[in-house]
């Protein structure tokens, strides 16, 4: 396949996974890259809300429909690049946030999951080979769930987002060993919400933090994003890379995007 699939995952919720996935997708597309973005957090979807300003309801086909074999790859992907005047294409696949759709997923058998992972591979293959996509970001559900493991298995690289909270770090360590190492997947860690306050972490620099976490997790750390209070205070449905592209949070993510590009190409 020409393009690369990158999963954004975390051991626990609230690490900023979706905000990072959406903004990375917009940053890459604004630089001329053709990007796909899939909402694979099927049990707690949020991309439909984030992109609601540019998508006219009703959404005809959801990712749920595609995984159930009810629509084609072309039908499930929505092109939003013109709405944001992006240089590259941005195609998004949304998960259905309706309670009925989520309830229906709860009753799915492991055999359905086998079909789902095969459908996911087919979707990525069509995106890369026929729809000109260079990078596809998969926003997954936190922890060990079928949707997140299916996306990790179908990705070329998984970025595990963690905060420096001990529960997050321990969960990430367990997940990296028991899941990613066992499945032999290429993985990198992204630390989010790092507090640069001198009273925190004994005034350790972000480089020092990255090196210490790499020592603990035995996986490369591709970025340490500081905690920006104004980002936390803003509405999460706002896409910072569109609304405030010069914000330091976006500058940090631009560095991450460059590192991802190197890892994927390497």
């Amino acid at each position, binding site marked *: 396949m020409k393009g690369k699939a990158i999963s954004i995952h975390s051991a626990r919720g609230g690490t900023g996974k979706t905000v990072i996935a959406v903004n990375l997708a917009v940053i890459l597309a604004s630089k001329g890259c053709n990007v796909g973005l899939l909402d694979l957090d099927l049990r707690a979807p949020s991309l439909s809300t984030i992109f609601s300003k540019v998508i006219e309801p009703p959404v005809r086909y959801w990712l749920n429909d595609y995984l159930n*074999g009810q629509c084609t790859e072309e039908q499930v992907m929505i092109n939003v690049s013109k709405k944001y005047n992006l240089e590259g294409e941005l195609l998004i696949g949304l998960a259905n946030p309706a309670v009925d759709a989520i309830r229906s997923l709860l009753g799915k*058998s*492991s*055999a*359905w*999951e*086998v*079909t789902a*992972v*095969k459908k996911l*591979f*087919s979707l990525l293959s069509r995106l890369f080979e026929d729809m000109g996509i260079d990078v596809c970001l998969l926003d997954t559900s936190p922890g*060990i769930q*079928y949707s997140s*493991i*299916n996306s990790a*298995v*179908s990705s070329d690289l998984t970025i595990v987002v963690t905060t420096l909270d001990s529960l997050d770090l321990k969960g990430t360590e367990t997940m990296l060993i*028991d*899941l990613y190492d*066992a*499945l*032999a997947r290429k993985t990198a860690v992204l630390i989010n919400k790092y507090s640069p306050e001198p009273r925190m972490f004994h005034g350790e620099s972000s480089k020092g933090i990255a090196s210490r976490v790499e020592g603990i997790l035995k996986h490369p750390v591709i970025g340490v994003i500081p905690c920006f209070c104004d980002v936390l205070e803003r509405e999460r449905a706002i896409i910072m890379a569109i609304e405030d592209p010069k914000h330091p949070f976006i500058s940090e993510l631009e560095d991450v995007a460059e590192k991802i590009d190197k890892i994927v190409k390497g």
Partner: protein
Amino acid sequence: MHFEVLDMAVEETNSKPEFILAKTLSLFQTISQQLDLLISINEKMLETQKEFLQESNARAGNGVSPDTLSLLSLPSSLRKTVLALYKLQKATAEDIAGETKRLRGMESAWANQLVRLGYLKKIRQGRKIYFFIESRQETKE
């Protein structure tokens, strides 16, 4: 007296190398026939057991499903083959080897082992044998 002469004659015949060789050959032939019979019985038993296992699995509806979580319980050598087949969907041992960068012969052995374990199916098309993951929805279709 007559009997003694007869016994001596028999003993003399039995000690001849031609006779010993003929008798050994005959014994080997009997053993070979019995081994063939055992092998054939064993094969029939294995076939019956396999059919029984498949039937009972189908009846219970719990055929092996190679979902991504189940992969974690497989040895890493077999897991890699299934992961490659998720991507390739349907492939020969050679195609799988191209994906996993392992030897074709080893991939063939692992894929066949996964077939025996019920994780994969295989189908012959012309001279090639293709391995694939079958999911229950597809079976119904």
